[in-house]
């Protein structure tokens, strides 16, 4: 099935979205579903255009935007940051991708964790990657994490009405070491030693508040992040799959995946 999305009134990065065509979700990939709040018209092929009540005939996921209902997390430690995310992308109740990678590289030692609309966050991340790459070549040195975060903030705040994106920017630079900046929906930016985001994050605020201590080692941060993500994935229907982790430090980036059967176990779950 192909359908075209019609909407109006956007500019800048959103211009690219104007020409996007919507494809049905294929296993293991995002579909480029775009949507604008209250301004989307979906036209179905002629053979089914007479049906206006889609409730029973068409599954829920053909009418819903693709979102990374998610749990994402980032923690600073001495010498770098640990970032983590679950791997589920949903369109309504259908899991469009169960092995998503929500940890996106923006530069060599700067990553972002994406939550919210899959399309919006991918588009923003692409745009910031471009801008940061250009900036870094001009400066002829590694960009600061704060610069990357500011670029995200600029875009998320300027287009706050059209976008639905909650992003955590984390990385390492030579000047200030490991840093985590959070840019939630709405476009504010703040630096935090530990930050969680996405729909599953509500369930683990208590756990993170009680278990985080300043001065943890890299291994402790990895364990802390994996446990927090596991707890959130157990409680949040929109988070699940595997846990993807990455450690960013002066030495570079180390990535790991913890599969479902290897996740930490808790007595009540």
């Amino acid at each position, binding site marked *: 099935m192909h359908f075209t999305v019609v909407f109006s009134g956007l500019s800048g990065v959103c211009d690219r979205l104007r020409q996007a065509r919507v494809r049905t979700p294929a296993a293991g990939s995002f579909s480029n579903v775009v949507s604008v709040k209250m301004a989307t018209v979906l036209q179905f092929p002629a053979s089914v255009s007479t049906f206006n009540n889609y409730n029973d005939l068409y599954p829920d996921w053909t009418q819903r935007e693709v979102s990374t209902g998610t749990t994402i997390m980032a923690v600073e430690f001495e010498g770098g940051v640990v970032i983590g995310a679950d791997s589920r992308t949903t369109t309504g109740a259908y899991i469009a991708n169960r092995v998503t990678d929500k940890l996106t590289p923006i530069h060599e030692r700067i990553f972002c964790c994406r939550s919210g609309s899959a399309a919006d966050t991918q588009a923003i991340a692409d745009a910031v990657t471009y801008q940061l790459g250009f900036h870094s070549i001009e400066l002829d040195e590694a960009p600061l994490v704060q610069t990357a975060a500011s670029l995200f903030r600029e875009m998320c705040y300027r287009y706050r009405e059209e976008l639905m994106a909650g992003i955590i920017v984390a990385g390492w630079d030579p000047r200030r070491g490991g840093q985590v900046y959070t840019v939630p929906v709405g476009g504010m930016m703040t630096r935090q030693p530990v930050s969680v985001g996405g729909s599953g994050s509500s369930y683990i*605020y*208590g*756990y*993170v*508040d*009680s278990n985080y201590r300043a001065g943890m080692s890299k291994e402790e941060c990895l364990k802390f992040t994996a446990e927090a993500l596991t*707890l959130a994935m*157990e409680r949040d229907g929109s988070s699940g799959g595997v846990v993807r982790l990455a450690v960013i430090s002066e030495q570079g980036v180390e990535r790991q995946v913890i599969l479902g059967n290897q996740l930490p176990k808790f*007595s009540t779950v």
Partner: protein
Amino acid sequence: MSEELFPEPEWLSEEVKTGTTIIAVTFDGGVVLGSDSRVSAGESVVNRVMNKLSPLHDKIYCALSGSAADAQTIAEIVNYQLDVHIGHSEDDPLVCSAATLVKNISYKYKEELSAHLIVAGWDRKKGGQVYATLNGLLSRQPFAIGGSGSFYINGFVDAEYRKNMTKRESQEFVVNALTLAMGRDGSSGGVAYVVTIDKDGAEEKCVLGNELPKFFDE
């Protein structure tokens, strides 16, 4: 007049809710219940010291959340019904009976009411028990959390709860959970009320704001 110079504050017309955090935990020999103390109507806090742990009988308490009026009324009605149920008998009522009475009201009037009560207590037959009665179901659980603040501590309680904790450990667990939830939920706050019920009776305690545990960001 549709336009007013000084429009009526939202909280005058908002229903009074106990946007809340409540928790009940079994330990070896009894139960511990805990709640915060904030009652809000819109953005205004109408009572900052409300005790949401309401006795249904000597050794059975319930924790109130949701609409303040609905929850209080259910508790009062069940208090009366429980007395009728035991009549002149010497025995203490079973926790299961109290929970069933709460569940019956919650289920029968589920469209009209919006309150969630957690019933917990001690009886001779099964010791300490906790029952959740959300939306008219009845579920016995090792522990239960409820209220708007409970979302934030789901991860914490899943990770930290262990079976067969001592009384002291359960009390600490409850106070920690309440503090974390009050730290994140705008509709929960104030002081923490803790009630411990075992075979010897019920002991009520109030932990003031400055005595609550502190976490890394304070």
